[in-house]
């Protein structure tokens, strides 16, 4: 009787089915995905709470990884910021003329640059006279000398000799106590100096900057009267920028002389000319004029490729810095990211254990109608939840670590919301990737075998 009658009778059953509103049932089954996902959140929370040790271990795995990445990224951004601020303190309106560029990358270049003529005061005077787009210009020479005051001694303190006094403004420094020296003092080569705040701290430990004004300081065997103290500039990479003495160029020339082969004399007889334009858009014109003036003075024709001097803006150094460091940064971040990968493997391992432990549960869920997708979603949500929470904690500890390191080294930090979002985002992706295989294994379990488990 069965083969023929079954289908005809079965079709009448559909009347019953229709009574149950099959279309609504089908639709709600689809909408039910949301209910199942929502439920999966609670299942995940319950499961994570039930297995506290397992959850804690997983969290630690992710937290360590995210901490490493966030700390490294935050520190690097802080360093970048510090460097950018430091080297742009003179502003984008300043450029320099020097014998050698500040960065030399090969021995051949070094030899070539050494053969160039020194930059002299005459060069500077010619530029002052001929460059119409220039606003302010000055010369500077740098040296290192021993310094003494009473019992306090230091073997090597930076001396910067500048002229005219407006070079202070080109340098972007401001006075804290006392004054800059005057034009007259500068021209006549008076034994006066303006010192950085560290000089006061080191040589006048019990005195305020105001009290140090008018006192004498012995530098390189010469006596200088302190007329002013500079506002602190702070540290860069742990090195103070306030441990220096600034004297008039004429004084320097009188006391030490120029063109004397002294190893400590950094500029080795050659000066650095600083040129400032009234605004950034005149920088290029001024550069062209100065280049023409200097090429002319060095006897260069159009055909000569080498200028015979180095014309540099401050951002040249910045560009070089970022070019040189960006690869190092990438490698550092990459190394830190390895710990995140390890964290991902921890998550995967623990998820696999979890799937094995909960085979019976998976069987029950499948018996009452959970599909592969439902099981997959449940385990994925669990993995992502752990890694996202771990990521959030990791961002906090990462910022904390960066803050501690920054405090120790001494530079400002940049806490960006983006690195926080990135930290949680990346760890969630790690969760998806490392949760996918265990979840897929759970989803693929045969319901009969799964029910039989335990």
């Amino acid at each position, binding site marked *: 009787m*069965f*083969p*023929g*009658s*079954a*289908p*005809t*009778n*079965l*079709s*009448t*059953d*559909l*009347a*019953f*089915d*229709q009574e*149950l509103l*099959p279309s609504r*049932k089908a639709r*709600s*089954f*689809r*909408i*039910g*995905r949301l*209910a*199942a996902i*929502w*439920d999966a959140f609670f299942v995940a929370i*319950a*499961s994570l709470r*039930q297995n506290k040790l397992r959850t804690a271990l997983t969290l630690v795995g992710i937290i360590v990884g995210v901490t490493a990445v966030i700390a490294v990224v935050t520190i690097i951004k802080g360093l970048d910021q510090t460097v950018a601020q430091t080297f742009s303190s003179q502003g984008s309106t300043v450029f320099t003329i020097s014998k050698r560029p500040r960065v030399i990358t090969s021995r051949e270049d070094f030899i070539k640059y050494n053969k160039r003529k020194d930059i002299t005061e005459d060069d500077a005077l010619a530029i002052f006279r001929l460059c119409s787009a220039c606003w302010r210009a000055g010369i500077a020479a740098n040296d290192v000398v021993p310094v003494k005051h009473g019992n306090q001694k230091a073997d090597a303190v930076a001396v910067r000799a500048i002229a005219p006094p407006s070079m202070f403004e080109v340098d972007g420094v401001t006075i804290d106590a006392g004054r800059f020296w005057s034009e007259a003092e500068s021209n006549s080569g008076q034994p006066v100096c303006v010192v950085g705040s560290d000089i006061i701290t080191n040589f006048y430990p019990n005195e305020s900057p105001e009290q140090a004004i008018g006192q004498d300081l012995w530098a390189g065997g010469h006596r200088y009267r302190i007329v002013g103290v500079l506002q602190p500039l702070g540290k860069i990479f742990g090195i103070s920028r306030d441990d220096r003495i600034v004297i008039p160029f004429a004084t320097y020339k009188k006391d030490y002389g120029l063109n004397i082969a002294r190893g400590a004399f950094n500029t080795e007889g050659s000066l650095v000319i600083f040129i400032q334009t009234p605004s950034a858009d005149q920088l290029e014109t001024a550069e062209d004029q100065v280049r023409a003036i200097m090429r002319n003075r060095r006897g260069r024709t159009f055909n000569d490729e080498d200028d015979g001097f180095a014309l540099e803006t401050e951002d040249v150094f910045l560009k070089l810095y970022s070019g040189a460091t960006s690869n190092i940064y990438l490698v550092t971040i990459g190394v830190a990211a390895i710990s995140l990968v390890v964290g991902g493997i921890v998550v995967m391992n623990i998820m696999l254990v979890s799937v094995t432990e909960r085979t*019976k*549960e998976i*069987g*029950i*869920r*499948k*018996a*009452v*109608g*959970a*599909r*592969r*997708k*439902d099981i997959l979603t449940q385990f994925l949500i669990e993995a992502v939840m752990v890694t996202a929470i771990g990521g959030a904690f990791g961002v906090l500890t990462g910022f904390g670590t960066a803050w501690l390191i920054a405090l120790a080294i001494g530079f400002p930090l940049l806490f960006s919301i983006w690195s926080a979002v990135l930290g949680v985002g990346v760890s969630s992706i790690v969760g998806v990737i490392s949760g996918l295989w265990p979840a897929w294994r759970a989803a693929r379990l045969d*319901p*009969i075998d799964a*029910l039989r488990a335990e």
Partner: protein
Amino acid sequence: MTEATVATSPRTAIFGKPDLASADGKAEILIAMQNIWKTYDMGSEKVHALHGVSFEVHRGEYLAITGPSGSGKSTLMNLIGCLDTPSQGDYWLNGKNVSEMDDDELARIRNQEVGFVFQTFNLLARATALHNVELPLIYGGIPGARRHEMAKQALTEVDLVDRMMHRPNELSGGQRQRVAIARALVNHPSILLADEPTGALDTATSYDIMNLFEKLHEEGNTIILVTHEHDIAARAHRVISIRDGLIEKDEQIK
């Protein structure tokens, strides 16, 4: 074959529906097993768990399937419960040919058409009774409030609504089985499929559970009981005995 096509396409069937069942007053056929074979490939040799089993179950029947272990009884139960598909033959459940469905379609049939009651209850240990009963509704996509209400109603039916916030380990064996029965009933399935439902219970509790099945049958539920205990099977109205993968006896006892 054309008839089969009609049946697998519900829309066509609804439009061309003949009203035969109500004409002769007999309940419609809920399950039609047509020459069902189940073969397991055990490496070199093939093991036939079922060799050509055919029978029908009408709506509202109370059927027991018995047989010694290894008879193919469990295999048959897995097939009826849509946990597995036959190697050969057709299985019609409530107008749908489930013998060729894939995993997800079977999951849906299990969700909508079958209510399982297991020997070992198979409740989620960490979830409350209420959540356990809600489980099929979650996968059936019933929204939260409605789900809650339906689960409570099912628990009322098994007289456990006052214990709904308890976890399985806070309930007795009989209570756990009643939670499992509530879970099986909550989605109003076509069949209630019980596999040795009293196997883990003492005699008195077994009695309660069997009385509950009787009550559910009287309310119109179709019940299929798989058991090896004769006195349990004797409570049913019809008994199918399986031996060596074949139907040995199929008798109406009430």
